[in-house]
C-alpha cells in the first residue's frame, strides 16, 4: 500500500459529510416532488416540507392516468404516446443518418468532402436558440407547420452525432474494409455488414443522446405545432403550468406530471449508467 491510500479519520468523515450533504441537495428536490404529488392541493401548498403525505391523496395520479374529474386540458396518455412516438422516430432517424454521414466523412474519399466537412462544422456556429423563429418560418413556408412532420424533420439530423460517429469510424482498422473489398462486397455492404457492428458502442451512445434530447425537447416542439393533440409530456406540462389549468395551484398534478416526465429518463439512466457517463464525455472532436 502506498502512503497516499492512508488518510486520517477526520478527513474521511469530512469527505463523507460533503458527499452526503451534496447528494441530499441533488436528490431531495425529486423526493419532495414525489411526496407532494400524493397530497391534496391545499396540503401541498401549505405543508410542502412534510415528506409523509397524511392523509395520502391519489387525486393527482388518478387524473394523470385518466380517471376522475379530468380537466379538458390534460390528456396524459396522449402526451405519453406522442413523447414515445416522436423520440423513437427521431432517434432511429438520427442514428441511421448521422452514422451514414459520419462514415462518409471518415472513410470515403470523394470530390467536395472537405467543403462539406467545413460546411457542417460551420452549422455548429449557429446557436439553436437563433433557429427558433427561423424554424417556425420555414415550416410555415413549406406548409407543414402543426404536424408530426414539422416536429420530426428538423430534428432528424444532428451535427454532434455526425462527428461522434465520425470519430468512431476513424478508429476502425482499415483491414476490415479491405477484407470486405476482397470478398467483392460493395461499399454499402461493407458499411452495413462489417463496419456498423464494430462501432456498436458509438451507436449505443448516440441512441442514448438522441433519445434523451428528443424526450426532453421543448423549444422546437413548441414552435412547430399549435394543436394540443401534438402535446408531448414536456410541452403538455409547460402548457398546464403556463395557465392551462382552470383553477387553483394544482401543485400535486404539476409535480406528478413532472415526475412522470422525468421517470423514464431516470430509469434509462440507472439501467444504462455506464453508457450515459461515456456518452457524456464522448461526443466530440478537436478541431
Amino acid at each position, binding site marked *: 500500500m502506498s502512503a497516499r491510500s492512508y488518510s486520517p479519520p477526520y478527513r474521511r468523515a469530512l469527505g463523507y459529510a460533503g458527499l452526503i450533504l451534496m447528494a441530499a441537495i441533488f436528490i431531495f428536490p425529486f423526493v419532495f416532488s414525489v411526496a407532494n404529488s400524493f397530497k391534496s392541493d391545499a396540503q401541498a401548498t401549505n405543508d410542502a416540507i412534510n415528506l409523509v403525505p397524511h392523509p395520502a391523496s391519489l387525486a393527482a395520479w388518478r387524473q394523470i392516468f385518466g380517471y376522475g374529474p379530468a380537466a379538458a386540458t390534460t390528456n396524459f396518455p396522449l402526451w405519453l404516446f406522442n413523447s414515445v412516438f416522436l423520440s423513437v422516430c427521431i432517434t432511429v432517424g438520427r442514428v441511421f443518418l448521422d452514422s451514414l454521414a459520419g462514415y462518409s466523412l471518415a472513410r470515403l474519399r470523394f470530390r467536395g468532402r472537405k467543403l462539406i466537412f467545413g460546411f457542417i462544422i460551420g452549422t455548429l456556429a449557429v446557436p439553436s436558440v437563433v433557429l427558433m423563429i427561423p424554424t417556425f418560418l420555414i415550416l410555415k413556408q413549406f406548409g407543414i407547420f402543426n404536424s408530426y412532420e414539422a416536429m420530426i424533420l428538423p430534428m432528424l439530423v444532428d451535427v454532434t452525432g455526425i462527428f461522434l460517429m465520425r*470519430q468512431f469510424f476513424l478508429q476502425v482498422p482499415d483491414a476490415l474494409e479491405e477484407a470486405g473489398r476482397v470478398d467483392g462486397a460493395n461499399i454499402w455492404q461493407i458499411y452495413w455488414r462489417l463496419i456498423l457492428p464494430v462501432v456498436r458502442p458509438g451507436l449505443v451512445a448516440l441512441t442514448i443522446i438522441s433519445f434523451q434530447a428528443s424526450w426532453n425537447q421543448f423549444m422546437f416542439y413548441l414552435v412547430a405545432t399549435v394543436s394540443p393533440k401534438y402535446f408531448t409530456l414536456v410541452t403538455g406540462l409547460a402548457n398546464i403550468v403556463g395557465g392551462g389549468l382552470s383553477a387553483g395551484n394544482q401543485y400535486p398534478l404539476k409535480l406528478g406530471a413532472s415526475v412522470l416526465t422525468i421517470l423514464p429518463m431516470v430509469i434509462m*439512466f440507472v439501467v444504462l449508467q455506464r453508457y450515459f457517463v461515456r456518452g457524456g464525455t464522448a461526443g466530440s472532436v478537436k478541431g
Partner: protein
Amino acid sequence: MALVPSDGPGGASLAAGQHVAAPATLPPHAALAGGAEGPGTGRLAHMARRGGPRATGTLRKGEGLFGWLFISPALVILVLFVVLPIFLALYVSFTNWSGLTPPLSSSVKLVGLANYRTLLTQPGIYQSNFAESIRNVFYYVLFTVPLQTVGALGLAVLVNNKFLKARAFFRGAFYLPSVTSSIAVTVIFMYLFQGAGVVNSILHVFGWQQTPNWVYDQRGLFTLILSALGINNPGWGNHLVMGLPAWQWLAGPSLGMCVMIIMVSWTTAGTFMLFFLAALQQINEDLDEATEIDGATSWQKFRRVTVPLLRPTLVLVVTLGFISTWQVFDQSYLLGPANPTSITPAYFAYQVSFQDSAFGMGAAVAFLLFALIVVLTLLQRKFVKEDLTK
C-alpha cells in the same frame, strides 16, 4: 473547437441543463476491439490510411458515388432546416410579417431597418423590454457560469476522493439532474421556491422570517444589498440607457432570476463534473505522490498542482457554459410570465413573435442575440487566450 450536442435542428445547442458532450479524446472503449492489426500496420495500410496525407490518388470503385449518397440526407436536412431558415429569417427581420401567411407571400411588406430601430433606438415599450431582457440574461450568465463551474469542480473533487466508498452512487446522484427535462425541473423548483414552499420553510428554521416570494420577486440582488447598507438610487440612476434607467441596469439579478441561476447551476454542475472527473483521473499519480513527499498540504497540492493541470478543462467548461447560458429559453418560458426580470432575449423573441404576432421584430431579436453571442464568444476567447499565455 469544442462541439456541443444539439437538441434542435442541426446547429449546436445546449439548452441549459441539457446534455453536454465532451471534447478532446474518445473514451477508452473507442479504441475498438478490431483485432491486433491497428491502423497503420499491415501491408494495405499505405493505401488505406486516412487523416494523414493521401498515399494513393486513385479512388476506389464507387467511393465518390457512395460518399455523396451517404452524406446527402444529412446535407439536405441541414440545408433545409438550418441554412435556409437563417436566410429566410434574415429577410423576415426586415419585414412586417405577422405569421399568418407564408413569409414569402406578396402581402408581406419590407420595412427596412424599422424592426431593429424599434428595438435599439426608438424609445418605447419594445426598446425597454429588449434592454431589460439583455440586462436579465447578462446577470444570469455572470452568476451561472462561475457557480456551475465551481460547483462542478467541487463535486468532482469530492467524488474523486479515492479513500471513499460508494463513489459511483454519488457520481450518479450528482449527474441525475442532467438527464431530466428542463421544463420538469423548472416546475419542481417553482414549487420548492413558492411562498410557503420547502426553501422558505428551511429558511424559517434558520431564523429568517421575512422570506421573499422568490419566483415573483423583482427586486435586484445588488439593489437589496446596497439599500441594506443605506445606499439608494442617486439622481443619476434615473438616467435612461436604451430605455432602461441606469439604476435598473445596475440592479443585479432579481430574486426571481436567482431561482433560475440556482436551478440551472444545480442541473448542470453534474454534467460538467464529468469533465473534471475525467481530467482528474488523468492527472499523473506520480506527480501527486511527489508533492506529497515534498510535504505539501492537500490544499497546497490542490492549488499548486491540480488546478493548473485542470486548466484546459476549466477553459472548456467555462466556454461551454457561456455558449449554453446565453441561450436560456425553457426556464424563462415558465418563469418569465410571472416575473419580467426573468425574461431572457430568447423568450422575449418568442413573446414578440407568437404573442404580439410581430415576427419581423422577433426575427430581429434573434439576430441581435446571435450578434451578441458571436461578439461575446470572440471576446471571451481573446480573454482566455491572453490569460493562458500569462
